[in-house]
């Protein structure tokens, strides 16, 4: 009858994020970045994955221990309206991490909520409303507040500004920058928007079909692009107008031989179809997954 076709969302990725830095993960939609984000926080479980958080291998610990660690690592999901419980008032959603952790008195919780609402520049009046009564931007602020409630060390932000108006996007990004600075957060920024990556992240990685094809310091990458795909993505005008930007999940090379970008690569050579490339360090803290560079 029918065979199921599996597509590897994440295939052989390896990177590190240092405390206090903002790490950007860029790629087209469907390249697996959301999956990567969820994997890091162990929201999706795979056995062939190893994740170390502050020295603890979270892929090997028990569920109960993981639950105790969760307050330290939070995720901001892509769609703010969907990630808030429609039946709960905004302030109840924000409070939830505190209630889960337990141990705080009513008064303390109330105070903390007020602080959070202030921190994200949300109108206290609005906090008493329901998600469907608020705009996308306001809901995203609420989601931010909720993520901060447990005093996390690490936040994964998955497309926090997509779907929002441009002015609101700017607001949210500024807000996040300030918070990151004030609270000394470590962040991972997942986005397809290159401007955002450039603005927000210290280091970044470019993803293509589940693999990282180029990684390093943000400014370095933007000024010295190496990988053919990265060039297509980030500076298409330099290529002379041959950029295809649709995600091409079903097309392309699903075989395990050769470079995953081979079918679309302008500069491909023979070896590219035969052997998978390895990560090569091109400069200090600038790596490329390619045979040629």
């Amino acid at each position, binding site marked *: 009858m029918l065979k199921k076709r599996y597509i590897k969302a994440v295939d052989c990725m390896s990177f590190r994020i240092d405390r206090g830095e903002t790490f950007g993960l860029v790629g087209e939609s469907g390249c697996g970045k959301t999956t990567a984000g969820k994997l890091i926080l162990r929201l999706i479980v795979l056995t062939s994955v190893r994740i170390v958080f502050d020295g603890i291998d979270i892929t090997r610990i028990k569920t109960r221990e993981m639950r105790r660690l*969760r307050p330290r690592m939070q*995720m901001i999901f*892509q769609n703010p309206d*969907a*990630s808030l419980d429609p*039946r709960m008032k905004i302030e109840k959603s924000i409070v939830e*991490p505190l209630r*889960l952790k337990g141990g705080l008195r009513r008064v303390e919780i109330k105070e903390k909520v007020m602080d959070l609402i202030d921190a994200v520049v949300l109108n206290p009046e609005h906090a008493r409303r329901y998600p469907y009564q608020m705009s996308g931007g306001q809901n995203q602020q609420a989601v931010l507040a909720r993520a901060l409630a447990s005093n996390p060390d690490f936040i994964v932000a998955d497309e926090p500004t997509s779907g929002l108006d441009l002015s609101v996007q700017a607001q949210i990004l500024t807000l996040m920058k300030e918070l990151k600075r004030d609270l000394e957060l470590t962040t991972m920024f997942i986005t397809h928007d290159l401007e955002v990556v450039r603005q927000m992240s210290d280091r970044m990685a470019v993803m293509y079909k589940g693999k990282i094809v180029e990684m390093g310091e943000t400014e370095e990458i933007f000024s010295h692009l190496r990988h053919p795909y990265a060039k297509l993505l980030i500076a298409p005008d330099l290529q002379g107008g041959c950029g295809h930007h649709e995600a091409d999940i079903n097309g392309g090379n699903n075989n395990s031989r050769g470079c995953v970008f081979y079918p679309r690569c302008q500069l491909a050579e023979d070896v590219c179809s035969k052997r998978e490339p390895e990560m090569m360090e091109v400069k200090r803290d600038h790596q490329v997954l390619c045979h040629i560079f």
Partner: protein
Amino acid sequence: MRAWIKNRNILIGLSITVTLIFIAAFAPQVAPHDPTEINPMVRLQPPSKEYPFGTDHMGRCILSRIVFGSRISLLVGVVVISGSLLIGIVLGTISGYFGGLADDLIMRLVDGFLAIPSMFLALALAGTLGPGMFNLMMALIAVEWTSYARVVRGSILTVKEQEFVEAARGLGASDLYILVHHIMPNILSPIIVIATLGIGYAILAAAGLSFLGFGVQPPTPEWGSMLDDGRLFMRKAPYIMIFPGLAIMITVLAFNFLGDGLRDELDPRFRKEIPH
């Protein structure tokens, strides 16, 4: 949410239901006579001032029997629905939330029960378990729980894929917490609707089974069995069976109005708030 009062269906349904509850609660005050008092001298009397609905073949006041019968009907309706809801929610949750083998087994069980048309199953169960209100209620619960299990399972399947559930998990919530605090409140709407309509159906089914002789036994006044009594006297004293039947119809109608109104109120909002 107080706009619900403006909904005509809810208004009608609620007023009748509240009246019924009042009548049932204050039956001794409302009824003009003792419902079980046998008085051969006045048997088969047509409606009069003394006996507004007439008397039956044993000289009992029909109105009084109907008033007290409301207690039985409401009790049966509520108990049957509560029992079915309990079983349905538990099994539906296990099936929908945890899935896997449990889901398959429970669904096969549901299919098995649903294979027999409900009236036949209820009849067979009530008949073989023996007479009595308790057995009647057990038989009806055994028939009704399947609908609730299915609805709960379906709703949970939809809700558990929503992002806020994943978000809650990300916050460190356990499965139990998520079920109680996030999933349940979001599946309440359809459950309320079918439970309300279900009470009406349970009352109807119970009356039918009592009419056939299973369930409540004489001399307890139950609307269905009163109709059975009236069968023999259809020509001479049709009011014996007309009034109990009317009572059943009005009661079931009330719950149907209420259920319909609730469905109108809850459905579109439900659809709006939870994007499919």
